[in-house]
Each structure stands twice: as structure tokens, then as C-alpha cells.
């Protein structure tokens, strides 16, 4: 019954602990080739093809399988993912090394392995009796692994020969390590480098472009001059950091100046955290977001941050001298006080490279295959790539990955990954902004989809275990029009004892997404659904988001219910949570719900239920506001899309109805109730959401702004802020209140998820609640799924798992969720910005009235209420004489020539699309009124907005 034949031990001395682990070797592990008599029936998972036909290689014409080593997998994953590459054997040794070295690549390779089409087979060689190797004396771990891979490759070749000699099936070992390749060939294993092999695939020439170009260390020194000093090895760096010689920090390239960067030093909050780096040599090949080690330069070499805007426009390698000249121009600041700690990069602790979006700058030399690539993100240096399809890629958005940065090269080397499409194309630009904000948006992989329930789906007996049948209740949902992912529904009914029962029913997503599986991992990675102007990037596959988890009307759905018993004063008497099955009676829009409440003629169950809810919600809201909850506004813009072209034709700011706030009120209540419950049950590892109170200094601008309009804003508590905002009104200037609220929003801190065991400040400032979490939108937020799981465990409806009760894992998860939420927000804004551009592109030049939101040293920020658009009007331009500017920080105000600008002043600006830079189109605003000679421009265009409000009104009336 024990299948292990040999019994070996692996010893590993970690720290000073001697750890002994058993390692069983088996003889029942299959080779993965179908029809192999020797390991009959011992296959699991996707299998290799019996006769691999497709990749016609000129190097090895007979059918073969590929066996890549770790580095090939790590660096050439772009090639391996190509549909042309199939029948690959992934060794366990390789997979484990990849897992330890790069989590993203590991995930990608797992996805590939799960794809049946690709015929990737994972061979558990470390536990196979004939392919296990032990570390020998004097051999380091890497050498052992290389040997293990060669042994497995050799075993495969012999094994396949045994299986059928006439097939001439071969296993080809792919390695980029010269020595390893030589050794393999010596041992009789057919081996090629990745480059050799890919080049031999005559049928797929496009693959060559996707090869990562890795220059070998040896070649580096021979060719060309060395520009950069060497990076120190990690061990030296760590020592240096420990001793304080070097500082560790995150490298942040400047957006404005490619020769300048700052390093944000981790740790000590008291000390000056930023170090300036100036000049190519001091930047020493660090790329934005890398973790680097820097050495401080002596004080006499310190510099001040330069105010010069410099963009790298060089094309040629030989510009290094010019570069130096330019660097000299940076060092203009003489003022001693301006000098900041300056340093240079001595080594890289961790690269944080990712694939970058951008455009190709075609080389001037005809027929050249080397071209420079300009990333969309200005903080990323240009990248040199080799491609034969330069002409085809011109004017397209493409993705490029960095492979390395040799010491003798002005630019990093990279390879072409993907062509996204034409610049300005809506699809392409959406893709770009998703990529640039690191929003995972690939279609869900097979592995993920395999965990979806099988259709047709219905509630089974088993599902009803631990679940209450609430299908008889009159539940309905209220959402914006066109909403397909309905995650909440409500009900309200009178109880016999005169009290009211209110229920919030939330889609039971955690029923479908089980902890730890691929579906769960993918949702956790995505963290949130991202809503762009015309596109939704789902966190969970559509089957769940728009069907099984969406609480649509008249179908049975699983839900997680939070049910209160309240009196008519909306005081909670009892609360209980239960998993349930519901059948929503109606899916309403906010408008429909409002109409039902308002129309006296309707008195059906749904309507009375809605009225009850509305009544309670009003009491709840009032009470909440009394406690000091803030109601802040920021102009939210919605685009009217042309149904044919999907181009935006009009903008509309969102309007709010009573029903919006009714639903919101109960969601808040549910979230608070759940937060209390899970914190009670899991004091150490509840996932909560907090909103820290902003430091008083944040409010300065708000107070000053209000003062300039003779209004007083108190900011000592949330309550006084809310009250003073309510009072702040001006008869002559009704819009001032909205403006103040917009400003107040800007003063706020970010609300974040956190693990209760890792923090002790739980307060939610904005909602004035001592504890808060997210429970009500599990379809579109992963945090809610975790909260569902915690709550389910708390009420005994589901089981726990180790990660759920590990506060460090939970804290890591929170970090990712916070990051994803922030990125989703940025992506959303970028999407709005892009659509605004499209809108103005079609509209041409427009003049509009707006208000000054901020006053800067050389510019004013203007808000156009009509479009909810914010833009900056600059008063300094490159080729124009500088006007006389006087900036007063106290008021704040800006005096230009003879005109003074204050916050909230009304101005008129001209809005147009600036497409001078193809990659970075933007909206430009210039001043029309008040007129300042030489600065403002006359509104010479026929003003288009005269009839504008009319048209819009009509639309709304419809």
C-alpha cells in the first residue's frame, strides 16, 4: 500500500535549524505522452499530443516535445504563451523555481498549463524514482537543479525511444545557459537556445519579435563604451544598508525631467525621506518603481530639484556628451537652502518591471531593425527593441517588456509583446489605460472558468442546508437603469407585534467562489470591478456577475440576508444574519421606485414595502447626519453615448433621487451591523474599512477659500464641519455651497480596508461611524466576499480556512485591495478624461463659464460645472514672454499684470483639444474673461454654447 520505493532525506540548514524533510520517490508518475505503455494510466491533467505536428522547425524536423529550463520560462514566457508553441514539458523543478522567483510568471504558466489547447504537461520529476537527483558535495543548489533538469530531459528521450522507436519522438531541451547547453549535448540531449529554436520556426517569423533579448554578461564589456558604473551585488547592498552606508528606497522617476528622480527612503518617518538623483550616471539604469540602494553624495555635490522640463528626445547612442551638457544646465540653482540630499544609485534590490504601453519611434535609418520605443508613462525610459515590423507598428499603441539594461547601453533592451491597435482608437485607448493602471482585464482563464457552476443551475437540496427559505417575502431591488449586476435587494413588512421587519439581501457570491481555488485567487487579484465609461471589467466571470449572483426579479437566487426588527422610530431591536434563498418580485430603477412611492394610486405589496423603507431611511439619514456624517459632492459626469458609434455625444451630471439615498441608507446600516458582528466574533482578523480624520492642515485651503467669500467653516469635528457646510450659503452666489463641498472632498483622506488585528483606530470619519466594513457588493468588491465568509463562519453557515484567520495574510490582502481600488479610481478618471477629449474633439472649440477652484503659482485650476470638467489655465508658456505674476499664499490669490484671481472667482475659458503630442492628448483651457491683454484670448469663435442648455433640458424632460 505504500507506493514509495526508496526513501531519501533532504536536509536543509536554514538559520541554524536543521530541518529534515522526507522525500518520497515514486514509480507511478506518468510521462504525459498518451499511448505510453510503460506508464499506462498514470497520467493526470492535460496531456501532450501523441504526434506533435505543428511547429515546423528547420533545426529539428522530426516530431518533438520541448523542455525549457527555469530561465527560459521566466524570461521567455511571452514566447511560450504564443499559440504556436505547444507540447511543452514543464518540470516540477522548473515550476518550483519559477514559483519562488516570480509569482506573476508562475501564475501565467499555470494558466497556460490549464489550457487544453496548449498541451503543456507538468512532470513531477522530483518525486520520480528515475529522475530524482541528490545534491552532491561541492555542488550548489542551482547546479543541482540544472543537473536535475538534464537528467529528466535525458530520461524523457530514453523513455520515448522505449515507447516507440520508429516515431523518432524527441524531447528538446531549451536553455539559454551556454554551459548547461554544452553539458546537455555532451550527455546526448538535443539542446538549443531559445533564440535558435524560435528562429528555426520558419512558419512563425513573428515569434522572433517576442523573444526577450538578453545580452550575456560576458559580451557586455567587449562592445562599446561603458556608460554606467556597475551595480553592486545584493549581499554587499544589504550589508551597506545595514551599516547605513547605503539607503534603500523606491525609485521614482520624474515625470517632467528624464534626468532627475527621487528615491523615497523606507523607514524613518522623522528624517528627510527623499533623496534627489540627477544625471544619467547617477540614475544608473534604475527604472521607475524599482527598489534601489543609493549612496549619498558629499554635501558639496548636492543639488536642488530643477524646475526645467526635459523630455528625452535623443535617438542616437552617441549623444552621451550632449547628455552631459544638458545635465550641467540642470545645476542652476544657487540658493543654498534649495539644496537637497543628493545621491546616486549603487545597486538594484528589486526590479519592478512590467510590460509598458507606448509607441514606436521608428529609427531614421532605413531597414534598421533596432528601434526605440517611447512608453506612454513619461517616467519610464525609452526602450530599445528589435523588430522587423517597424512600419506596421508605427502609429500604433504597442506593449513592450524590458529584458535588461547593459552597462554600455544608453537605453534598456526590450522586446515587443503585443500590438494594441491604432492611436486614438477607442478600444486601443481603453486597453492602454487599463494596462497603465495595472487593471487585470484579460478574459478569465480556463482554470478560473472551470470553477463556475454548471448550467442550467438551480437551487438544490444541498444548497438549502444552513439556509433559510425567504422566497415568500416580497423582496425587490432598486438600482440605476441598465444595471445587470444587482447585488442587493430589500424588503420591509409589518410584524404582528407592531414592529417592522427590514431585510437587506445581498447576493451570496461566497457560495459560488470557494476559498483558494483559481476563481477565488483571480477575484482576489482583481479586487474590484472597474467601471469605465462604456465598459465594465468584471471581478468575477459574467455568469456569476450578471446571472447567478445577480438578484434579478422572478428567479430563485441565493442571498446573504441581514434582517432587523425595528420600531417605527427606526431603532434596531434585533438583528440577525442568515444565508437565504430569495425570489425578488421586482427589479426597479431609482426612478421607477420613486414613482411608485409618489403615486397615491399604487398600493400593492411592493409599493407599501418601498414606502416603509423610505420612511425608515429618512429617519436613519437624519440621525446619521445629526451624528456628524458628511454629505459631500463631487460632480459626477455621465456620458450619453451614440448608440451606433459609441461616441459620447453629450455629458450629463448625475442627479440624485430620494430612492438613491433610501437604498444607500440601508446598505450603510447593513455594513455597520455586519462590521459589529464580525469584529465581535473575530476581534483579531475582521476585515474592516476605516476613514481616518484628515489632519487639520488639510483644511487650510477650505477655510481660506470660505473666508474669502466671508463664510466660516469649522473643521474641529466632522459634525461641526457638516453643520458649517450646511450654513455656508450666499444669496448672491448660490453655487458656492457646492464648490465648498467639492473642496471639502479634496481635503479628505482615502478610506482604506484594514485588518482589525493590525490597527486600533477603526473610526470612519465620513460616515461618523465607530466601525464600518463592506458587505453589500460582493459581486464587484472582493473585500465583501471576505466579509461574507467571515460572517458565514460567525453564524456557523460555512467553514473557515487557514488564510481567513491569518491576520498577516489578511493585511496583505487589504494592501492589494486598497491598491486595486485606487487604481480602479484612477482608471475611471482616465476613462472619463479620454471620453471628455473625444467629446471636445467632436465639438471643436468651446467657451464656457467656470469657477476657480485652486490658485497656483503660475496657473489657476478652473472647474466647469456644466461638464464637471476641471482644467488648468497656465500663464507661462514656452515661447511667450513671461507675464508679471504675484502669488500670495495667505489669501490665496494670484495677480497677473493688474488682474487678481481668488478662489471661487468666476471666469470664462476656452476649451479645446490639444493633440500636438499624439501620445498624450489633453484638454487645454485658456482664459477668455476677465480680459488681460497678452494673456487672455478673445472669444472669436462663434460661441456654440448658446443653444446648449436648451438642448440638454429637452433631453432631460424626455
Amino acid at each position: 500500500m505504500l507506493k514509495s520505493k526508496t526513501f531519501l532525506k533532504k536536509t536543509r540548514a536554514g538559520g541554524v535549524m536543521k530541518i529534515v524533510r522526507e522525500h518520497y520517490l515514486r514509480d507511478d508518475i506518468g510521462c504525459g505522452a498518451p499511448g505510453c505503455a510503460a506508464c499506462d494510466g498514470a497520467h493526470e491533467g492535460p496531456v501532450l499530443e501523441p504526434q506533435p505536428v505543428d511547429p515546423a522547425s528547420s533545426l529539428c524536423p522530426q516530431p518533438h516535445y520541448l523542455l525549457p529550463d527555469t530561465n527560459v520560462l521566466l524570461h521567455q514566457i511571452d514566447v511560450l504563451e504564443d499559440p504556436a508553441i505547444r507540447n511543452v514539458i514543464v518540470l516540477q523543478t522548473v515550476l518550483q523555481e519559477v514559483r519562488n522567483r516570480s509569482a506573476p510568471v508562475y501564475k501565467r504558466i499555470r494558466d497556460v498549463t490549464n489550457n487544453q489547447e496548449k498541451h503543456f504537461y507538468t512532470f513531477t520529476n522530483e518525486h520520480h524514482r528515475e529522475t530524482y537527483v541528490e545534491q552532491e558535495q561541492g555542488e550548489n543548489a542551482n547546479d543541482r537543479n540544472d543537473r536535475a533538469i538534464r537528467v529528466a530531459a535525458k530520461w524523457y528521450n530514453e523513455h520515448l525511444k522505449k515507447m516507440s522507436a520508429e516515431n523518432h519522438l524527441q524531447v528538446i531541451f531549451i536553455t539559454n545557459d551556454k554551459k548547461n547547453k554544452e553539458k546537455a549535448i555532451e550527455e546526448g540531449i538535443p539542446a538549443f537556445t531559445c533564440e535558435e529554436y524560435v528562429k528555426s520556426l520558419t512558419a512563425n517569423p513573428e515569434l522572433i519579435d517576442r523573444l526577450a533579448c538578453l545580452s550575456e554578461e560576458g559580451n557586455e564589456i567587449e562592445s562599446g563604451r561603458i556608460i554606467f558604473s556597475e551595480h553592486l551585488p545584493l549581499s554587499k547592498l544589504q550589508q551597506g544598508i545595514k551599516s547605513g552606508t547605503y539607503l534603500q528606497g523606491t525609485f521614482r522617476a520624474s515625470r517632467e525631467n528624464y534626468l532627475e528622480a527621487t528615491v523615497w527612503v523606507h523607514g524613518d518617518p522623522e528624517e528627510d525621506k527623499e533623496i534627489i538623483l540627477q544625471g544619467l550616471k547617477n540614475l544608473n539604469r534604475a527604472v521607475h518603481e524599482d527598489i534601489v540602494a543609493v549612496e549619498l553624495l558629499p554635501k558639496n555635490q548636492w543639488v536642488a530639484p530643477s524646475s526645467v522640463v526635459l523630455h528625452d528626445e535623443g535617438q542616437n547612442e552617441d549623444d552621451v556628451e550632449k547628455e552631459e551638457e544638458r545635465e550641467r544646465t540642470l545645476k542652476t540653482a544657487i540658493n543654498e537652502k534649495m539644496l537637497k540630499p543628493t545621491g546616486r544609485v549603487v545597486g538594484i534590490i528589486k526590479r519592478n518591471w512590467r510590460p509598458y504601453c507606448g509607441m514606436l519611434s521608428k529609427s531614421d535609418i532605413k531597414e534598421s531593425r533596432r528601434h526605440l520605443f517611447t512608453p506612454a508613462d513619461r517616467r519610464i525610459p525609452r526602450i530599445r527593441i528589435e523588430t522587423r515590423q517597424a512600419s506596421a507598428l508605427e502609429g500604433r499603441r504597442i506593449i513592450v517588456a524590458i529584458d535588461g539594461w547593459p552597462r554600455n547601453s544608453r537605453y534598456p533592451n526590450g522586446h515587443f509583446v503585443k500590438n494594441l491597435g491604432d492611436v486614438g482608437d477607442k478600444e486601443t485607448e481603453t486597453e492602454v489605460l487599463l494596462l497603465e493602471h495595472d487593471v487585470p482585464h484579460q478574459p478569465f482563464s480556463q482554470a478560473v472558468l472551470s470553477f463556475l457552476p454548471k448550467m442550467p443551475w438551480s437551487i438544490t437540496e444541498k444548497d438549502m442546508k444552513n439556509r433559510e427559505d425567504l422566497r415568500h417575502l416580497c423582496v425587490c431591488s432598486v438600482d440605476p437603469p441598465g444595471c445587470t449586476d444587482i447585488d442587493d435587494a430589500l424588503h420591509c413588512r409589518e410584524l404582528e407585534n407592531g414592529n417592522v421587519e427590514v431585510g437587506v439581501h445581498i447576493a451570496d457570491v461566497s457560495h459560488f467562489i470557494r476559498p483558494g481555488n483559481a476563481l477565488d485567487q483571480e477575484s482576489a487579484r482583481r479586487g474590484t470591478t472597474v467601471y469605465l465609461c462604456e465598459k465594465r471589467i468584471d471581478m468575477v466571470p459574467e455568469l456569476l456577475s450578471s446571472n447567478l449572483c445577480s438578484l434579478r426579479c422572478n428567479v430563485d437566487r441565493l442571498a446573504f440576508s441581514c434582517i432587523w426588527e425595528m420600531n417605527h422610530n427606526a431603532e434596531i431591536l434585533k438583528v440577525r444574519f442568515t444565508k437565504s434563498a430569495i425570489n425578488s418580485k421586482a427589479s426597479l430603477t431609482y426612478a421607477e421606485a420613486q414613482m411608485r412611492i409618489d403615486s397615491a394610486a399604487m398600493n400593492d405589496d411592493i409599493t407599501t414595502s418601498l414606502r416603509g423603507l423610505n420612511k425608515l431611511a429618512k429617519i436613519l439619514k437624519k440621525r446619521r447626519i445629526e451624528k456628524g456624517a458628511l454629505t459631500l459632492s463631487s460632480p459626477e459626469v455621465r456620458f450619453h453615448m451614440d448608440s451606433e458609434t459609441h461616441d459620447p455625444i453629450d455629458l450629463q451630471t448625475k442627479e440624485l433621487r430620494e430612492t438613491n439615498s433610501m437604498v444607500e441608507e440601508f446598505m450603510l446600516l447593513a455594513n455597520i451591523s455586519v462590521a459589529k458582528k464580525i469584529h465581535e466574533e473575530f476581534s483579531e482578523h475582521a476585515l474592516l474599512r476605516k476613514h481616518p480624520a484628515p489632519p487639520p492642515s488639510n483644511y487650510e485651503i477650505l477655510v481660506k477659500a470660505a473666508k474669502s467669500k466671508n463664510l466660516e467653516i469649522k473643521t474641529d469635528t466632522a459634525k461641526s464641519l457638516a453643520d458649517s457646510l450646511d450654513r455656508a450659503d450666499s444669496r448672491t452666489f448660490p453655487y458656492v455651497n457646492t464648490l465648498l463641498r467639492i473642496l471639502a472632498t479634496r481635503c479628505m483622506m482615502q478610506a482604506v480596508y484594514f485588518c482589525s488585528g493590525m490597527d486600533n483606530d477603526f473610526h470612519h470619519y465620513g460616515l461618523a461611524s465607530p466601525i464600518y466594513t463592506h458587505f453589500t457588493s460582493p459581486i464587484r468588491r472582493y473585500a465583501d466576499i471576505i466579509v461574507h465568509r467571515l460572517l458565514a463562519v460567525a453564524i456557523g453557515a460555512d467553514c473557515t480556512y487557514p488564510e481567513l484567520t491569518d491576520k498577516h495574510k489578511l493585511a496583505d490582502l487589504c494592501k492589494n485591495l486598497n491598491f486595486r481600488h485606487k487604481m480602479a479610481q484612477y482608471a475611471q478618471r482616465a476613462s472619463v478624461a479620454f471620453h471628455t477629449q473625444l467629446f471636445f474633439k467632436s465639438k471643436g472649440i468651446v467657451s464656457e463659464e467656470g469657477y476657480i477652484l485652486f490658485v497656483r503659482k503660475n496657473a489657476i485650476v478652473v472647474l466647469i460645472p456644466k461638464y464637471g470638467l476641471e482644467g488648468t489655465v497656465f500663464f507661462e508658456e514656452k515661447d511667450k514672454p513671461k507675464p508679471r505674476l504675484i502669488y500670495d499664499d495667505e489669501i490665496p490669490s494670484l495677480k497677473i499684470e493688474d488682474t487678481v484671481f481668488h478662489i471661487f472667482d468666476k471666469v470664462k475659458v476656452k476649451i479645446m483639444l490639444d493633440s500636438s503630442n499624439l501620445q498624450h492628448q489633453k484638454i487645454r483651457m485658456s482664459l477668455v474673461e476677465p480680459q488681460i491683454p497678452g494673456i487672455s484670448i478673445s472669444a472669436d469663435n462663434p460661441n456654440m454654447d448658446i443653444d446648449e442648455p436648451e438642448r440638454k433640458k429637452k433631453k432631460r424632460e424626455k
Partner: protein
Amino acid sequence: MASVALSEAEKVYIVHGVQEDLRVDGRGCEDYRYVEVETDVVSNTSGSARVKLGHTDILVGVKAEMGTPKLEKPNEGYLEFFVDCSANATPEFEGRGGDDLGTEIANTLYRIFNNKSSVDLQSLCISPREHCWILYVDVLLLECGGNLFDTICIAVKAALFNTRIPRVRVLEDEEGSKDIELSDDPYDCIRLSVDNVPCIVTLCKIGYRHVVDATLQEEACSLASLLVSVTSTGVVTCMRKVGKGSLDPESIFEMMETGKRVGKVLHASLQSVLHKEESLGPKRQKVGFLG
């Protein structure tokens, strides 16, 4: 059983036999029983050994841990001894019953081993005043059939011989801050030289003569015995009289001479057994408690 009850007649029988240089099990006065030694029996220790001498069964595990040197000896590592007289040997040892005996043996071991002449303690120092190796020598008494001290000493010596301490390097930068780096080659380790490690020979005074390696029964007939620790060259490093009886000075010198003689032989045979075992290499079939 740490002790055994004998009748008067049995005692007389044993004493008379010893007088004739003929012991109950047929040995002469200076003969040891058959000794079984096996090293590397507990794989998660740095070194281990199991020694069986008659019915006496000892398991020793050595664990190397990093620590700071003692203030008075900044250039040396040190050894810590712990003897667990487990209830396995006798129900009397249950709970805290074996603690007294354990402490007594441990103290004797400290006296014998924890000095420079026995073990090269300086080789255990990693960086003076900061890091050194501490060898925790844990003795587990599994069965007791007389002559505990000798057996334990053999087992400790064998375990120290078997001990492999991972090699560490102290990396030092210009400012003098130090970092310890562990070699990633599991074969890269330090061995201790056990050449100077002494062995205890216990001599039991029975009647007018003395015997080595007394069994439990013989120990019951003896009033006093002498522990002599002897190195492989025959140098006596330590001596202690144990037991409730008294000894005359003359017989002490006699016993010491016997101790030296027997000790040298014991060392030689132990050394050869240990080397022989090691020459079998790591692929040796381990016996442990299964054989």
C-alpha cells in the same frame, strides 16, 4: 531500574566470584561488556549516537545553536549538558523522579568536557564576544543496566564525533558591522576533533578487588567506586569518588592505574569503530531501534 535488590546469598556469590577474577557473566575484572555504538540515529540533530552497554541504553543528541560567548571566555563557544532520566528506564523516574540523578550526571559531564583540553572550544567561536556555537548535548537514558557514567561518556563522545556544525562566514564591512552568512552547501560543515575527549572508567570496589563496567547486581554489592576520566593517551583528567562507602588511598592509586590501562584500550576500540562506521558513508543502512 537504577538499582536492584539482592539477597545476602547473591551478594556473597558475586563478591566471591570477583575475588577469583570470575564474574557472574563470565567476564574478568577488567573486561567491558559488549558495546554497541551507532551514530547519526536522530536525523534532525547536528550529531547523535546511541550506545548500548549490556542493558544500559543511552541516546545522545547534540544540537548546535548560535549564541553569545560567555563574558569570561569571549573567544570560546561552550557546551550545555542535560540528562533526562526518562521513565522508560524505570517507573521510579516518572515525573520529577529522575531529576536528581540527571543533575548529578550532568554536573559530572560539565566537569569533564567543558574545558579547553577536552574539546577545542575556540573552534566553536564565530566572532569573539558576539557569536559562538553552543552545543546542547542532551542525554536520554532509556534503560539502565549498570555503569551509567561510562556508557554516557562513550555516547557523548560518539555523538560529538558525529556532530556536524554548518559553516558560517562572518561578513564584515568597513564600519565593522557584521553579518552572518550560512553556507548553502549542506556538505560544508565543521567537525569537532574528539581525540582529546576523555572517557570515564568507573571502577567498582567489590570486596578487596575492583571491577570495571559493573552490572546492576555488582553495583549493589559495591560500597564505593571511583570515576576516572582518561584521555586516549592515558592521561587522567578528572577523578571522583562516588558511593556511600570509603576507600583507602592505596587502593585509589591501584584503581587509577587500572583505569588508565582500561581507558586506553576503550579509546582505541571506540575510535576504530567510529571510523569504520563513517567509512561506510551516508548510504549506510541505519539500524536504530529497529534491529
